[in-house]
């Protein structure tokens, strides 16, 4: 029953569009639709592009729950900038996170996620904020890098990449770094 209603929602044309515009295949899109639909079937049935709030989405997607960049992901991928996801936003997210997505496309999105203060460059502040998020531990407040070492790490990273002597890391510089870090594309993905 559930799958038939979701099939009804996704017309052939739509599926065709989605498969050609994302790195997902048909099965994955149907799967996502089913999951998305199950959050609140009625709302989706009445309005296909219904926007669910962050909490609703996170409840269904465990991968996002524990992610230290959760708020950034919602900010970046929400097309209306309201921290809510429509089905298409969700598709965007999953497309980028799929294994087929080439590393430079991933890098372009990752740049926006890591650019926490949204000034179009990753500055020392951003790096220290990322470090905070990475090492954050609710049980142990002392488990936090001190200011000095964070600054040091930021300095090392920025010094090396600042080929053109401007404040932070720009998008193209960022893509360039990430293409040289093999770890990135394997960590910046999840299976559906």
């Amino acid at each position, binding site marked *: 029953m559930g799958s038939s209603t979701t099939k009804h929602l996704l017309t052939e044309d739509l599926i065709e569009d989605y*498969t*050609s*515009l*994302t790195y997902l*295949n*048909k*099965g994955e899109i149907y799967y996502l639709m089913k999951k998305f639909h199950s959050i609140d079937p009625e709302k989706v049935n009445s309005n296909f592009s219904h926007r669910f709030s962050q909490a609703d989405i996170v409840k269904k997607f*465990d*991968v996002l*729950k*524990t*992610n*230290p*960049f959760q708020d950034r992901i919602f900010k970046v991928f929400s*097309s209306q900038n309201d921290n809510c996801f429509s089905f*298409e*936003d969700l*598709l*965007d997210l999953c497309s*980028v*996170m799929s294994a087929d997505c080439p590393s*430079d*496309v991933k890098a*372009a999105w990752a740049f*926006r996620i890591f650019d926490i203060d949204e000034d*179009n460059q990753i500055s020392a502040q951003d790096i220290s904020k*990322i*470090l905070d998020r*990475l*090492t954050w*531990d*609710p049980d142990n407040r002392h*488990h936090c*890098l001190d200011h000095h*070492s964070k600054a040091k*790490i930021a300095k*090392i*990273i920025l010094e090396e990449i*600042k*080929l*053109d*002597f*401007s*404040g932070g890391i*720009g*998008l*193209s510089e960022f*893509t360039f*770094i*990430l293409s*040289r*870090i*093999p*770890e990135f594309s*394997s*960590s*910046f*993905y*999840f*299976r559906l």
Partner: protein
Amino acid sequence: MSGGNSKNKSRSKRHEGWEEAGGEFYQELYPGGEQELFDNLQRADATKLATLLPSKQARNTTTAKRARSQNERRQSTYARTTQSRDIHLSMLPDLSENLSNEERTWEEIMQIKAMPVPMHQKRDLKARLQNATKLRLQGFEQLQWRQRKVWHRFRIRFTEVVGKFELWRSALREIEGKFGVGVVSYFLFLRWLFFLNIAISLFVIVFLILPEVLLVEDKLSCNETYPNSTVCCSEAYFNRNVTGNNVILDLIQGTGWMERTILFYGVYSDQIYSYFVHRLWDTEMFYNMPMAFILVPISWALFSLVAIVKTGAKGFKERLVESEGQFYMYCNLVFGGWDFCIHNEKSAKIKHKALYNEIKGCLEEERFNEEKQLRSKESHFFMHLRRLLVNLIVLIILVASGVLIYFAFNYSMDLLDEQISSNDQTVRNGTAERLTLELYREGYSFGRFQNIVLEFLPSICIVVLNIIVPEIFEHLIKYENYNPAHVVFISLLRTVLLRLSAFAVLLSQIYIQVTNPNRVICSVFSEESRLECWETYFGQQLYKLILTDFAVQFVMTFFINFPRSFIARHTNSSCLKFIGTQEFYLPRHVLDIVYLQTIIWMGAFFCPFLPIIGMLYSFLTFYMKKFACLVNSTPSPIVYKASKSKSLFMSVLLLGFVISIAPVAYSIAEIMPSVNCGPFRGYSTVWEYVVITFETFPNVFREFIFLLGTSTFAVPAFAVLLFFLYYYWAVATANRHMVTVLKNQLVLEGHDKQFLLNRLSAFIRQHQKRCERRNRASFADDDSSIQNSSR
């Protein structure tokens, strides 16, 4: 002169093209056009000017660039909307400049997905591209394009179907969610080995087992006049009564009836089979069994080597890119540190902690390096002393375990030999009454049990050592103050050495026995001896080893480690927790499966069924390791890097491959095969058979092969190879030089940019000031005029 002119012209044309395109480019970037840009500049304060630079702009720039770089080959029509580097495009007639054909449009649509923009924009773009007027392709081009489209669609469909059947998909996802990418790469490696074993098994099944089973062997009978001929020997061997042991015991030892099955080398025929395929051809067809028996191992060995090198090279390339250094270390941690696939709260917590430790570790290592220079001579000396001591202990342990295996092997062999000779005596005492022997055996059940223990003693010894000693090494290495990356590598190296030394002892023992000049080679009249068909015997040893290994793994996982973890989970006492808690220590598990693969490679020549057993084993191992990983272990506080561990796996596997193939190759080339069994009866070495077969080839072919071996071919070939080597080396150096040059240039450009930005900001400031002054002046004017008018 005129030539120069035209050149100039073309250059100027190019320039125009550039500028035109550049203008468009910036318009695309700043949708408001130049006016807005100027406003932006005016509003911007000087410090934020840098953020307006194109390289700092987020989306559109890169997408345009991406599309361009991908399309460059095909002279993309993106030139219509974005900057184009293709100069002649701007010189082409405008017809093709403004209209694209269907194929290009389709390509562009396929590339929309690479743009980092929300879905509705992508769909808009797609619709726009689809609705735009475009040229229809004609004739052949149309056909080609359609073909491409169909092929593309087929490929997508195909990958989707294959993806559905992906082995262990959900298991991998679960592991990924709990342990992150590093550990999953281990399981992917395991899966890869499973597929490798399937491939090897296919070779063996198709070319060895099926022919042996399906084709009928000619019966040759022993001629009484030559009692020592190969025919007689093998007849004696096959006609001898098989010792009547318990079926299950035979099954696990590979003796008795098992020895005479196609499981082992012994039964494979030394004949060239002839057969008819009636409906197709009425001519006689041949299947050269001995040749197949030698060619199949060579082909799967080459296949494995190519597979390892090919997979390893990918990792190696990644390693090369990632130059060691603080910068990459930190970049890895900061931008690639978090595994986005983790979906378990507890693991996320551990991951946070692990990352914290890793970063702390990196910082400390740096401090450590700084202190190293400052450290006093005394402490330096003590540290080295400690390391020396630990290495000495490690060496002693290795030697001791080697000696232990040696004694275990000799002890069990001696006792078994004694038993056989005593059996012989009983037989001789009453040759007529074989029944007594049966009775004797029945009554000797304890002895039989003892026999089994003795048979398995070397294998058990090796496996137990493999479990205990690495634990000791793990504790020892803590006293040596190595940095974390070295710890993994060194402990891995030591464990590999341990396993190899055990292997070496076993092999050397068997070798000594096989090459013993007093060995009974052809026992037509005497009773059986263990080493009658030594290849089968060797196969049995490895078969036993693999079974023991499996049993021990099974017991360790389910009956020892599982209760341990159970205790750890349900107790509060810290002591029990210490005993029970286990981490998924990657190097040890890697060694387990590499070891398995080594045994398979080594034994597959002597026991053709071994790859099939290995295939089943690696299939089960996946579940065993999954259980060990998900149920028994807690996530490890060590961060395993996916790319690094992949190349580590492959290098260890390559080592295992070389070590397992070398003795087999030696035995093929040097040791005399058994006279009474196997496909190579009566030849002095296995390789001799190949040489003899080669002699029967047509003369031209033989001459050709011989030519390959002579210096007339070798010297030029060597020279050509050297030349190529030199060429690639030169290209690599040139590229490296180019990289430095470009880097320097980039730095210079950076300086220039900085300079221009400073100038610009100074200018803007001046401009703003002037404006203010003018404004003030005009205000003043206004004021005065108002005052004037009011008067």
